[in-house]
């Protein structure tokens, strides 16, 4: 950075700096910007000065989701590498304007931050990326509250936020924002995809007992599963909200034993899920006979990292949904897995996959818009339909910024079936995109304006 701009930055800070940068950019590249009338307005860190495009990867590096965060970061680094040098899904993604030599002629670079799985810490970290490191887009995270907190900040500051792993309906429902995008699926889709399959496997006359993590994601997941299974003819016996910080679920499991339920639905994620699933198995809930049927355990949201934490002896035969799994055979997934394995020596998680895709999708939208101007990039992403990134043909719905794609229903493999440390999930069925597409109006919420006030 030149000395002059340093001084101006110090004295005037954000607003004046922006104006100055617009002027400087207009002088240095009149041809390019003159073509676009909208370029006159500075939003967030647009226009970019210099020849690098800075991305911010805000992932949990400490706390309960640190391993997922680490995997997300690996994927991000890989995505940056591919954007600059080609490779990976760049070869399979359609339609794609990505060149494999940067984005809009700029080299892609990145900064990282720690969300600590804490919305407040995540926002402070995101601010650093935005204010100091001048990122044009940021993303990541491994929980919905963190994603929602960040996408509100993103909208306020005019920086596009490409959410990482977040499964709550709220992210693209009542808390959706114009500047926030989600590639990951959500609780509603899980319900729609999973209910018919568990009804087929376990019968239509089942009595379900839910244990639900007492936070927003848990509530939306419970709600979705309840509606979807009841539509299949199941009865919901009871639901217990379990505190987010629980480690021992025995008191709730005892309540289930005391009831006449014959299916347990665990609306838990992360360590909650590992604990509740392990303990449910320990309480004999997969062998007991109730109402003349064998008791079953259902885990709506499955992830390979969680399965690893629980151990395959616990997860064998348990049904659930997942966004993506490394064993998928389509070209996009294979390209990603191959380059990930070549880089790190083991296959990526679904959190890594969604973060990788999000980065590419954003970069591609910039190429398609021909500018980094956020409102134009957002318009390109809205309603964008693509293929070749796993999960088949996928649509970024314009109304709520939610991706719609085929949903994978998986089953845990038994210790005997698995072929390696990471081979834990078996694909049972794929629910087509059309089936899981729901009306965006059911959750309410407002996207807000294209230009932050």
């Amino acid at each position, binding site marked *: 950075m030149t000395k002059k701009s340093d001084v101006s930055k110090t004295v005037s800070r954000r607003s004046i700096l922006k104006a100055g940068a617009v002027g400087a950019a207009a002088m240095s590249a009149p041809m390019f910007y003159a073509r676009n009338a909208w370029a006159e307005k500075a939003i967030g860190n647009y226009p970019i000065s210099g020849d690098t495009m800075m991305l911010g990867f805000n992932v949990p590096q400490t706390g309960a989701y640190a391993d997922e965060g680490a995997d997300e970061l690996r994927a991000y680094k890989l995505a940056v590498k591919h954007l600059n040098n080609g490779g990976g899904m760049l070869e399979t993604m359609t339609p794609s304007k990505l060149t494999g030599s940067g984005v809009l002629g700029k080299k892609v670079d990145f900064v990282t931050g720690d969300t600590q799985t804490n919305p407040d810490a995540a926002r*402070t970290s995101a*601010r*650093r990326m935005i204010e100091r490191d001048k990122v044009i887009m940021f993303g990541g995270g491994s929980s919905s*509250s963190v994603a929602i907190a960040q996408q*509100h900040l993103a909208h306020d500051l005019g920086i596009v936020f490409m959410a990482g792993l977040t499964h709550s309906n709220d992210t693209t429902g009542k808390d959706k924002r114009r500047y926030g995008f989600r590639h990951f699926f959500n609780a509603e889709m899980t319900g729609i995809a999973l209910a018919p399959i568990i009804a087929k496997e376990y019968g239509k006359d089942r009595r379900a007992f839910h244990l639900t993590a007492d*936070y927003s994601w848990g509530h939306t997941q419970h709600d979705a599963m309840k509606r979807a299974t009841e539509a299949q003819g199941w009865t919901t016996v009871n639901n217990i909200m379990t505190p*987010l910080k629980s480690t021992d679920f025995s008191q709730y499991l005892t309540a289930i034993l005391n009831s006449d339920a014959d299916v347990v639905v665990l609306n838990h994620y992360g360590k909650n899920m590992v604990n509740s699933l392990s303990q449910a198995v320990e309480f004999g809930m997969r062998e007991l006979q109730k109402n003349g049927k064998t008791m079953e355990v259902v885990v709506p949201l499955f992830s390979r990292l969680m399965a690893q934490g629980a151990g395959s002896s616990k997860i064998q035969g348990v049904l659930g949904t997942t966004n993506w799994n490394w064993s998928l055979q389509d070209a996009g997934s294979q390209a990603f897995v191959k380059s990930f394995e070549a880089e790190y020596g083991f296959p990526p998680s679904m959190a890594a996959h969604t973060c990788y895709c999000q980065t590419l999708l954003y970069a591609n939208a910039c190429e398609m818009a021909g500018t980094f101007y956020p409102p134009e990039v957002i318009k390109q992403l809205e309603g964008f339909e693509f293929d070749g990134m796993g999960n088949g043909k996928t649509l970024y719905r314009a109304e709520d910024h939610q991706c719609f794609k085929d949903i994978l229903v998986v089953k845990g493999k038994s210790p005997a079936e698995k072929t390696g440390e990471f081979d834990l999930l078996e694909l049972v069925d794929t629910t087509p995109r059309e089936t899981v597409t729901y009306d965006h109006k059911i959750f309410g919420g407002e996207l*807000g304006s294209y230009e932050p006030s």
Partner: protein
Amino acid sequence: MNKSTSIFSKYPIPIFSLVVLSFPFWFEYIGGYPGLDTKILIWALMALGFDILLGFTGYLSFGHAIFFGVSAYATGLMLKHFSPEIIPAMFIAVIVGTIMAFAVGYLTMKRSGIYFSILTLAFGEMLNSAALSTLQDITGGDNGLTIPDVKPVLFGIRMDGLSMYFLAAAILILGYYLARRIATSPFGLILKAIKSNQERLEYTGIDVQKYKLGGFVISAIYASIAGSLMVIYEPYVATEYLHWSTSGELVIMSVMGGVGTLVGPMIGAAFMLYFENVLSVPLGEEWLLVLGIIFMAIVIFLPGGFMEGLARIKKRYFNKSNKEEK
């Protein structure tokens, strides 16, 4: 305090004001960024108030987040449902925080030592659970209280960036001035006597219970103002504001900086946030480990925190020069 004749002890308020007001202009040269400076001031304000409780009376509260959080929610709800004008929001928030302080203080201040700490922790955790679960229709649960498209204003002036910074700075400087007044007042003297020998104080004709409650409430008012400023700075309320770890962080800041010195806890707050958000970046995943080690080292070798460190440095270098002068 100490009898040193440094410039700071001669002109504490002007020098403090100078540092605070110039802070955003040099902060960027040490890796800081806009926004973090404001956050540092807000935490410093809370740490300053906390020192009136911990530093003066010696009561270690693990529930100070209550006042920060409750006031943050009150401010958030006011901004969202009433008006983006911050005066009524702050006013209501501080009132709510103060009422809360009287209630919690009245019940917990009857106990001392660890029993007091645990009682405050218990109240804090109950409120946090309520915000997360029972009251989530009001608080937004773990998603936090989102306040979309509300831009807080003070008399029509939008509070963001530098204007927000200077609002926080003005309040902090006033807060520091008042804290110093309290420290040197008869009231402050009696608060310090509580830490020194509570039994003697009771047999000296002082209604210790009332003074303790007074100190607790004053300290809580600082936290309430800080909580309110936090939401004005960023119109969003995280449930973490009510979590015991917020109180815990406050304790760590105070101890790192130097309990009972007023300036120390503020330095501690600045250091913590600077470390967490700037120094942590190159350290990556290990930053918390490094912070833990630094924290342990300070407790072991510098029980008086940074302020003791400064005093030792001063002693080593300035005493020498004093001798030479003599």
